[in-house]
């Protein structure tokens, strides 16, 4: 029975990925079918969560919602705040008690986490070793330095990668990156290939006429960082701002204060690497970008708004042109507010980037996502973040009751059918306006606008983290 359900879930998700492709390429879209499939997948996940994920089972029991609750009940009673991923005791990390961390993580994962922790000395060790046992942990941090850890199975990670590739490729090909030939072949590829094959082929083909410039680290498990590592192989060549590992322990200590001399040493080394070499690193990044351009390559630059601002400042100081080859792309994401409270203004940043890199504003993209969700959304030219039909968005009022309607304002939540190994019915800390109508860009369905942190929520996101490192 379990195998049958898993098989059915897989089939539904594949179908939803196909629907998302078609939706993204504006090739017709059956919203009712998408909704029915989504709901079926959500209910299958609910059953699986009840059986396998203790934190969810506990809530369902408290809310007396263990048996076939219906989507509306799930939205009303069974959505967990994203803070569930930081419901561990900070002392465990302070005292390096990864046994307790395992136990805690088991409450949020579909399988018990009982990896040997005897030789685990740091958060990064813990994450690396979990990965070896099939648990991929991503983390994000807020102002407080209290990390959220999201445990995904290898299958979930793979499915999320496939789902994103499947829909972002046609989305961008439609009017951003696609050549006429690509646009011609795209419907054929979408029709003939399974999502898995489509994603594999896309990754294999890559975008070799692009070089990737990532305003991040060589490796690490934080949100944007994961995305960079996913994207890097697609390019002919890629380079990073900080040629070092984004060390979680150092990052945490830099927010919460070092507990001992060893921690302080780590923070000092890390800060020296990041803040101390900042000017040097940006100069190197600009040299790399220029080199790519001279070699006739288009450049794809990805980072947080705060970092782009610094890149622009570095470029201004150097006082030399950095014209990117026509067709190059800039993508930013990770929050507009730094931990120090500085709010970036989108319009001025786009203006600055456009001037310095001689790139038209329609080639400057913005992404919205979070560690807890499987999908990345991109801002369209009309200023909306369209939610692919795989995800069921929910807007909640102040008392956390789901709102109904086509123009809603409230806290953003979502039911993520791709999350099979951890609870994917989540309430974010973001306040949004959600419109459900046909957009000027041609996409239909729900789209987010005016995204900001909810009043009481921690300033969070990769943008903030980067800002804090440079403070």
């Amino acid at each position, binding site marked *: 029975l379990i195998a049958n359900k898993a098989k059915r879930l897989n089939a539904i998700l594949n179908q939803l990925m196909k629907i998302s492709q078609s939706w993204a390429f504006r090739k017709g879209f059956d919203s009712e079918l998408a909704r029915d499939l989504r709901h079926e997948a959500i209910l299958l996940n609910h059953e699986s969560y009840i059986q396998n994920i203790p934190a969810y089972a506990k809530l369902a029991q408290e809310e007396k919602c263990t048996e076939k609750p219906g989507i509306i009940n799930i939205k009303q009673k069974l959505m967990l705040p994203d*803070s569930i991923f930081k419901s561990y*005791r*900070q*002392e465990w990390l302070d005292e390096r008690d990864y046994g307790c961390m395992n136990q805690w993580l088991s409450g949020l994962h579909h399988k018990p986490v009982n990896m040997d922790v005897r030789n685990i000395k740091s958060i990064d060790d813990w994450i690396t070793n979990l990965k070896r046992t099939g648990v991929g942990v991503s983390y994000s941090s807020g102002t407080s330095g209290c990390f959220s850890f999201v445990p995904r199975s290898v299958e979930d990670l793979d499915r999320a990668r496939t789902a994103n590739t499947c829909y972002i490729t046609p989305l961008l090909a439609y009017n951003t990156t696609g050549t006429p030939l690509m646009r011609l072949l795209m419907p054929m590829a979408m029709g003939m290939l399974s999502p898995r094959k489509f994603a594999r082929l896309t990754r294999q083909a890559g975008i070799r006429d692009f070089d990737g410039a990532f305003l991040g680290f060589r490796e690490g498990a934080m949100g944007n960082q994961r995305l960079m590592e996913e994207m890097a192989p697609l390019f002919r060549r890629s380079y990073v701002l900080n040629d070092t590992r984004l060390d979680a322990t150092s990052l945490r200590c830099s927010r919460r204060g070092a507990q001992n001399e060893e921690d302080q040493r780590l923070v000092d080394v890390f800060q020296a690497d990041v803040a101390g070499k900042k000017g040097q690193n940006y100069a190197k990044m600009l040299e790399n970008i220029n080199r790519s351009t001279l070699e006739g390559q288009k450049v794809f630059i990805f980072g947080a708004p705060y970092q782009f601002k610094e890149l622009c400042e570095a470029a201004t100081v150097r006082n030399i042109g950095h014209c990117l080859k026509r067709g190059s792309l800039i993508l930013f994401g990770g929050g507009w507010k730094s931990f120090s409270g500085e709010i970036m203004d989108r319009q001025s940043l786009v203006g600055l980037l456009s001037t310095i890199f001689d790139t038209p504003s329609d080639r400057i993209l913005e992404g919205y996502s979070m560690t807890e969700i499987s999908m990345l959304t991109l801002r369209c030219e009309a200023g909306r973040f369209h939610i692919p039909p795989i995800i069921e968005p929910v807007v909640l*009022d102040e008392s956390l009751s789901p709102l109904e309607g086509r123009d809603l304002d409230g806290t953003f939540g979502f039911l993520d059918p791709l999350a099979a190994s951890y609870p994917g019915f989540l309430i974010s800390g973001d306040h949004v306006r959600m419109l459900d109508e046909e957009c000027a860009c041609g996409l239909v369905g729900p789209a987010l606008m005016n995204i900001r942190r909810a009043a009481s929520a921690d300033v969070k996101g990769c943008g903030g983290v980067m800002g804090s490192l440079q403070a």
Partner: protein
Amino acid sequence: MDKICQKLDLLHNCENVIRVPFLVKGRIIAPPEMTKREIEAAFTFEKSEHPGYVKLPGAQILREPMIDRRTMKHSGKYIYQVMPTVLAQDLVEPDTTKLADELYGLSVEAILDYLNTVSRKLMENAGLAKSVLETSRLATELPGSFFDGWATSMATALDRGQAKQMIDAELSLWGKPGSEFLDGWVEVLSKIVPPTTYGVTYPADHPSQSKSLIRAMPTRQLHITAGNEPEVPAVSLLRAILTKSAAVIKLPSGATLAGSMLGIAMATLPDHPITQNISLVYWCGGDDSIENPLFEFGAFDRIVLWGGHDAVADVRARAPYTSIVSFNPRYGVSLIGREAFHEGLEETARRAAADSMIYNQKSCTASLVHYIEASEEQTELYSEALRKVLEEWDHRIPQFLSPHTRGQIKMMKRGKYANASWHVNEREGEFTSGVVVMEGGFDILDHPMCRLVTVRRVDNLGDTLRYLHQGVSTVGVYPESRRLALRDAILARGVSNVFPLGQCERKFAGMPHDGIPVLSHLVDWKNS
């Protein structure tokens, strides 16, 4: 007062619209005439960054959702307060010579007489006061009886003896009562240190030149008050009056009615220098057109700020040269020794609950966290006893929980604190009060301050010292022997008050507030 209100149609609830006047330097400024239709239209068509507030030419309107006291939920209706607009230049007093000649020259006896008269006017117009309180109660989130407490507290504050004690205690210097310094120059028996700059001194050529004189000189004060306790604006007003100050009191949105009523009471003495130099007004916080001129150098000598760190930092940045007296958000905690388990757990829980319930946990002294010296099992026992006491409070004085607070509690229970042990009271499936036992650290900023007590177990009460800091205003300790033993160590951590458990609402005239004798910071100490 009744006459003023009737003549100008003020403070009267007509179809849930109330016209609220301001006192601006002795003059009652009434709002413009507006129909309910116009008011409702303003909220439909005017754009405002602040929900519940609209500024129109000549008028400001506050819209508050009404609370059905039977269900303790929003009724779906609104109450509207129509107020006049204010201009910064009408509030600032540039003529300090006039102040020195008139207001600053008043005697303490004259201040006390003034208070007496205002107090009498309020009593003579008890009907108006009652109606204002009833109207305020339509939208206040505080339970009615807590709101009534404000009226009693106000009467005490205006009492002549209490007021005199405040002045004498808080402005006391050199062993002399404060009223002497406020009344004029006081000679102090000092030994004058010889000058060191050139080693030259000029002999006194008049007897008055050889005296050392000190005086508490009034100041021009801007009070930006908060609404967590309804008495805050009244306390600020009282402090301004007692220091003979030319003051502007910015009322919080939840206390505009009561503030306005005080203004009308003062306006019954229109020619009195105190009335002529006090303004009781409202504007929406962050309105640069008003705040920038008020924060300008020289506009005021003191800014008294009740608010969060962000607000304080903002005002400091905008008024860098004005002296700021700030009352930051603080909270109380309770320390309960293991003796409680032998000497009556229920009684201890009752005392601790009383400290948590100060202004329904909204007061800066209300206890949010109870540290208990106990085993895990005993901690659960105590938490259950406390839950039962809170349940009694719920029955006796039901509270209103805003949708936001309800959401906040759900967030806590389902999210970051999902693994804590929750002891919750509910009504129709909704939280009414509760206790949450936290094993690990607890972020106080997550606390919703609505009859939710965080309980933390400790092996030894002394272990709690590491959790105490300047953000903690008040600690209630049980039993007395432990209070006396821990008192200095607790206070050395930055805490202001250490009281016996159950007595943390303690107040008396002349009591230091947040570690300072406030009146002393509101005057300028002058030498001659």
